[in-house]
């Protein structure tokens, strides 16, 4: 029996950010995990970042989180996606050494004096009078806390499928959480069932990579010549240490999948959970897109000296023998042997419409959910939520104002807003197209956007703040130089590149060498697309007023005349905090939003007193 300000259940990507943030804000934190060997574990692809996800990592980093620094320190191959496109959609992605990554994060947590490991299985959430009081472990231990953050990923009633085999598990080799699932459900949260999957892993030694490259079966994939780090704090450019390989599925793969479809739990009705559309299993790829002749497959080492090769794009839940046959049907993998088959996992999630923008539940004070439990998928989405929940748990304990980010401030803001207003019908993943003001939310300005907010929240230490202040001053100086010199005017012309001007010595700027030319690109784009950026800024400002019109916490939607019963029900459930949020709730008609807007400034005439909400049963 011990006492903490905050307890975090789960030390996955959400859990570690939550614990770290709360600890940095001065809270005593108990970090509960079933094992210290799976801290910040990557159960699926050994990579961080990607389109929009890379943005999330940069933002987490700008706010003082862990993920960016962890991947810079342990990444093996770095790429800036969309480099040929505009700056707003550049996204960093890196292959990680999955063991080193986990070890790095565990050490970072170990170094935090405010964090105590609670190794064991969390069982019951303790609540009195609608408030969190503590956590009971399955073994009977109890811990008191003022705030509890649940980040249990795929573990709630997790069920793994491999062909006809089914076994309860949170993920490969780890037991599911049932007692905790029951405890959470007992409060009446709306829950649902989702599904995700992972591909088979192969023995590195069983593959002749160079031979396959020579035979034309594989194409080598290398990192960028000048790697761009994730963290604004990284001063030494990360190095590329591995290659990956690209290959394509064959007709034989299609035939095998079709012949064995009845044995796939995805297609024989055994799996009820809804999987991510944007990350289709091999079965889905073949069946839903029959016209596509071949699909891309990447072979990715899971670490520098690890045996596992991850077969990206080949996730499935067919029986083990079929998976083996499928692997060997791939060109260059005729001799490959499988370490572990791929599988699908079904799990419970809580509809995030149950949450406020702080990720605190509406039903229970002090109870927060973050990560995959909220219906998202992906390490980055989980980490971003962990950070938000960690900060807000600390603030809630001290009765401080919530820390929230707006949709025009950060992808993190978009992520949270989408979750709490729209809920999840399928696993949620971030995309740049979810951002209304994408041009403003770039990876290069994530620190300019967010580090001041991170500082204000108390997550950015003095050292980092000084560094940021210098970087901002440098940036502004450079902008001025471009504004006031002939070279700056020249740069507006199409075809004139800032890099060339610098190389030819026509212009001198004060640049950070480790930014991997990102700064150059930013400065160039600010000049070249100044018109667009100005327009977008104006547009965001115009929308802000309406968007941020606050709906009081106790606003009685039921008493707004003219709202349909369904609208009232939806609004009362989601409890939007702003008019903007209300407008994004699915099924809300523009008329309903307009009516709501009208009555926001008017006193509501009481009609019939609304039925009191039934208080949640406390455990």
């Amino acid at each position: 029996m011990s006492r903490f300000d905050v307890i975090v259940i789960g030390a996955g990507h959400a859990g570690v950010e939550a614990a770290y943030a709360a600890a940095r804000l001065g809270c005593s934190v108990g970090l509960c995990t079933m094992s210290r060997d799976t801290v910040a574990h990557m159960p699926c692809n050994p990579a961080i970042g990607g389109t929009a996800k890379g943005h999330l990592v940069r933002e987490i980093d700008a706010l003082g989180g862990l993920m960016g620094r962890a991947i810079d320190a342990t990444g093996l191959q770095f790429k800036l996606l969309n480099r040929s496109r505009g700056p707003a959609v550049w996204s960093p992605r890196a292959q990680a050494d999955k063991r080193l990554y986990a070890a790095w994060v565990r050490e970072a947590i170990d170094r935090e004096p405010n964090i105590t490991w609670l190794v064991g299985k969390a069982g019951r959430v303790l609540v009195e009078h609608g408030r969190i009081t503590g956590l009971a472990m399955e073994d009977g231990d109890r811990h008191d806390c003022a705030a509890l953050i649940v980040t249990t990923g795929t573990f709630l009633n997790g069920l793994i499928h491999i062909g006809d085999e089914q076994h309860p598990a949170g993920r490969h080799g780890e037991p599911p959480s049932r007692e905790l699932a029951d405890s959470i459900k007992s409060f009446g949260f709306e829950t649902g069932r989702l599904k995700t999957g992972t591909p088979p892993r192969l023995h590195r030694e069983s593959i002749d990579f160079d031979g396959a490259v020579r035979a034309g079966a594989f194409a080598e994939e290398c990192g960028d010549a000048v790697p761009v780090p994730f963290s604004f704090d990284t001063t030494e450019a990360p190095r590329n240490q591995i290659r990956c390989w690209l290959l394509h599925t064959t007709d034989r793969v299609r035939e095998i999948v079709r012949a064995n479809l009845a044995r796939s739990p995805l297609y024989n009705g055994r799996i009820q959970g809804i999987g991510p559309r944007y990350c289709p299993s091999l079965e889905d790829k073949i069946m839903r897109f029959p016209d596509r002749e071949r699909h891309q497959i990447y072979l990715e080492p899971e670490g520098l000296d690890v045996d596992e090769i991850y077969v990206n794009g080949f996730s499935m839940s067919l029986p083990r023998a079929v998976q083996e046959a499928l692997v060997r049907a791939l060109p260059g993998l005729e001799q490959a042997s499988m370490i572990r088959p791929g599988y699908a996992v079904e799990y419970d999630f809580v509809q995030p419409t149950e949450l406020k923008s702080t990720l605190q539940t509406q039903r229970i004070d002090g109870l927060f959910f973050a990560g995959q439990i909220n219906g998202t998928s992906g390490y980055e989405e989980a980490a971003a939520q962990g950070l938000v929940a960690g900060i807000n748990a600390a603030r809630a304990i001290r009765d401080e104002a919530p820390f929230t980010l707006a949709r025009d401030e950060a992808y993190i803001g978009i992520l949270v807003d989408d979750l709490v207003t729209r809920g999840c019908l399928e696993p949620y993943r971030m995309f740049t197209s979810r951002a209304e003001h994408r041009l403003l939310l770039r990876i290069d300005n994530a620190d300019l956007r967010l580090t001041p907010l991170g500082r204000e929240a108390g997550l950015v230490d003095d050292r980092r703040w000084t560094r940021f202040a210098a970087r901002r001053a440098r940036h502004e100086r450079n902008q001025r130089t471009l504004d006031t010199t002939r070279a700056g005017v020249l740069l507006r012309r199409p075809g004139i590149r800032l890099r060339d001007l610098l190389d030819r010595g026509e212009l001198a700027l004060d640049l950070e060498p480790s930014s991997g030319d990102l700064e150059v690109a930013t400065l160039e784009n600010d000049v070249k697309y100044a018109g667009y950026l100005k327009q977008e800024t104006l547009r965001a400002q115009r929308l802000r007023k309406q968007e941020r019109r606050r709906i009081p916490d106790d606003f009685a939607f039921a008493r707004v005349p003219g709202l349909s019963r369904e609208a009232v029900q939806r609004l009362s459930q989601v409890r939007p905090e702003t008019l903007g949020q209300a407008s994004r709730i699915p099924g809300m008609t523009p008329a309903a939003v307009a009516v709501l807007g009208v009555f926001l400034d008017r006193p509501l005439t009481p009609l019939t007193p609304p039925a009191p909400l039934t208080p949640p049963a406390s455990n």
Partner: protein
Amino acid sequence: MFATDDSIVAIATPPGRGGIGVVRISGAGARGIAGVMLARPALEPRRATYTRVRVDEVVATYFPAPHSYTGEDVIEISAHGSPVVLRAIVQQAIDAGARLAEPGEFTLRAFLNGTRDLIQAEAVGDLIAAATPLQARVAFDQLDGTLTRRIRDIDAELFEVITRLEASLDFPDEGYHFIEPAETARCIGAVVGSVDALLAEARRGRMIREGATVVIAGRTNVGKSSVFNVLAGSDRAIVTPVPGTTRDLLTEQVDVDGLALTVVDTAGWRATTDLVEREGVARANQARGVADLVLLVLDQSEPLTPEDGQLLQDTASHTRLIVANKCDLPGRLKSAPTTGTVMEAGAVVGATSVVGTTSVAGATSVVRTTSVVGADFSRPISVSAKTGAGFDDLRRAIVCALTGGESLKDSVAISNTRHVALLVDARESLLSAQRAADAGATPEEFVLTDLQAARARFDDLVGTRTSEDVLRHIFERFCIGK
């Protein structure tokens, strides 16, 4: 006003005495209220039932939700069209629990209940306000969803491009080519084309919806007032042989081939010392300034005077028609040495009318009306206000000059200035996107911001995204019971 949990009642037919009048009740309680009021309370859905109320014998019809005008239960009671009777029926409904509807409230409810979109709701207002059959038809088409459908079609076209561009940004590693740069520009061009087609109808649509002002100008005594009277079909203007009789502006509403025209007779132009008359001349000049069309009347029984010449010059920049009046008398205009001026001035007029700029609500669109068919503005139109000769030609020429020569019989989807302004905005964004995509150097994300902006305008149009102010404005324009 935004409450929909009670039942509302109002007289649905125009004020005043009529053959029949209709009282409409809408709301969840409509049936119950009718039950109290009617001698035969059991009504079959959508069946006219002969029955009685306290003061009259009536026909009542029950339209169950959601297939009614408002999307709620609606009862319509047709009674004899005496205001007294109808008011009594309304009172009876109020006694039975209904509330008197506020202006526009039935349509507001239709909108709130989702049975009509914003364009359709606006169209109801137009339909009711329609003064000419053409106005009614345009409004009806919009009510019918014609414009909504066309916008949605264009939007769908645009959405397709947007999705493909977005896909290429969010899935760069998929090995797909979602859309080639050249195709992007071409697709956007096609969307612009569709918007243009819609906008091309706007000038005509606006004329139909809002009508036009036609100002009759000319020096004194050429027969302006006489022409006015013939057009107006009445003897409103005083016609005298004494120059300077018309000192003030006279206006008359006239339906010319379906166009609602406000025809304005002005004081003739002459250097005058008479105070009142001078004021009249000043007003005449002012009226010309706001005119959609100027009819410059000349007296063809006399040679051109310097005043005629001056007026020809003054009105040259206007859309105008030259009317050679008094063709019943021997013509002396032709033989006059100054005829050339008329022809020249006319040629200029022709040019300015073909390429018109429609200016709406502050938004100037650069819509080129399609070439004017069969309209020759340079030739004076011979008429006689005395015999009525030539007036058919004149009317045709007026309509032609105002509508850009297109047949008014063709359907017009767009007429409302709010719609035009939004479309013009959308078009600007699309053009900007097209330029960027065409040059190929601008990354997709920038092209996309413009495309999204255009899409937001379409949303505004159909009303899927609109501020409550716009809504209020729209609903305030309605009168009770509609």
